[in-house]
């Protein structure tokens, strides 16, 4: 791997843009890192905490694992769905108490009754092709994985796929489109992940953050 870890003595964090961001800042605050409110909402891509001890990179959630594996960030916060899908080699010392949801297979209720597993080929629309592949292999069901980038439910409604593999939080989107959950694949929560070299090179700083979060 050609990896350029950050060379700064400060801790560098990869933070997920979107839903997980607010609880993430709250978590860092508990560990003693305060970020300016204006910065949190700005369009800046890199910000620093008030004590200049930590740099935070704003990253698309599915990119957080790569930033951490390459050591550009020492640690990151990311949903378990993105983490597992990325297949990266990182430490995962903490599961956090936010971002809970489920990765599930869903489709038309008729198909659930007609036992979708008996099809010779199941067409699967998903943003998680790696997870879907491994899961259908485990089931022993031949699946054609169709990788989509948004609104995977449409894949089923429009006839592109038989089922979807996607995140289910409240189930509202599914219900409104007449789809139901067939089975849950992976319980998801936000994870605290750490680069393997940073764990050795910035051991004390990271241990302090991890134990502060674990205790909170």
């Amino acid at each position, binding site marked *: *791997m*050609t990896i*350029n*870890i950050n*060379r700064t003595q400060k801790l560098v964090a990869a933070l997920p843009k979107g839903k997980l961001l607010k609880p993430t800042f709250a978590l860092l605050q508990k560990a003693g890192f305060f970020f300016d409110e204006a910065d949190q909402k700005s369009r800046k891509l890199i910000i620093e905490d008030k004590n200049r001890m930590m740099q935070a990179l704003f990253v698309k959630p599915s990119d957080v694992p790569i930033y951490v594996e390459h*050591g550009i960030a020492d640690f990151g916060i990311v949903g378990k769905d993105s983490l597992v899908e990325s297949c990266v080699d990182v430490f*995962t010392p903490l*599961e956090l108490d936010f971002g809970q949801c489920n990765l599930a297979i869903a489709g038309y209720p008729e198909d659930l009754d007609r036992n979708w597993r008996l099809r010779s080929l199941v067409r699967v629309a998903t943003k998680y092709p790696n997870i879907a592949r491994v899961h259908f292999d485990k089931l022993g069901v031949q699946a054609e994985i169709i990788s989509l980038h948004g609104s995977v439910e449409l894949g089923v409604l429009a006839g592109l796929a038989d089922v979807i593999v996607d995140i289910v939080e409240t189930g509202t989107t599914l219900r409104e489109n007449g789809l139901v959950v067939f089975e849950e694949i992976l319980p998801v929560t936000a994870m605290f992940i750490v680069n393997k*070299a940073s764990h*050795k090179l910035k051991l004390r700083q990271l241990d302090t953050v991890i134990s502060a979060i674990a205790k909170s």
Partner: protein
Amino acid sequence: MIDKQIKNPLRLPAGIKDYIFNEAENHRHVERGLTNLLQDKGYREIITPTFEYGEIFEIATKAGMLRNGLDEKVYRFLDRDGNLLALRADFTAQIARIAAARFADIESVLKIFYTGKVFRAEPHHEGRSREKWQVGFEIFNEATVDADAEAIINIMETLDHFKLSNFRIAIGHIGYFHGLVKESGLSGDERQQLRYLVERKDMAGIGRLLDQTNMPVEVKNVLQNLPDLHGDVSVLERAKTAIRNEKSQHALGKLQKLWQKISSHPLAKNIFFDLSEVEGMGYYTGIILKAFTPGIGTEVGSGGRYDQLTAVFGTEMPAIGFSFDVHLLASARLMQQEE
């Protein structure tokens, strides 16, 4: 749409590279620095073949108690007679074969170094090399901590030679983990799972796995907190409490002794212990070593003790070895020079 059908004679498979002029010189400089240093310390070179019969890497990965996935990364192919051959995936397996075949009658200490490339089918993703340039050394016929200490001093002096300041060496001992696992009574599958979880320091996952099992509560507690057992030498004392099995105690004793040997070395401040360091070749039986330098997001070298590997080739010879990644050291060197 990108047409993959059109042949492009300029393209390269992912995970391999050309080194041109400056980069080539920088890499050779690192390679020579490493081999000269080892030569000066009395190590002698073995040049191993680029490919050989496929079994060798399979045998080597099965020598240990736990697999590490190397077997799945070996590039295999058939020769014209239908023999299954494999590209060199691991130097240590080859050197162990050579030591067992050629030096079975030698009882004195044998010190070997090598340089060259290993080929591994890494998953195709972001920048993982499928061709790794390694320089490494092996010490045979010395089962005491003296050889372990020599290996660590070699590593420290090498990194210091390249002026890689603030490097770190992590020392673990697979025996500590093996002892706990044995005491726990976990099944083979559960052991593999546990090792994977400990490798990733996945505290929550370890908790879930242990909750499903029936084992003495003391063992459960130690396994649950394993990912926290890292730091300076005091961690060995911490690790001792609540340990009753002999194998784990023996491992801690070895590490204590090792520390007595190396603690007075001027570079010893760069050493720390990590008993949750269980990642590495399946054939490791004793200490496990990893080296890190600022600026590189993964280990720049790794190794460990493997006392039973040569036995699968017919002769038991205790041994310890370590290999450096030439590309990562060259990158680290450039990076520190730029500052």
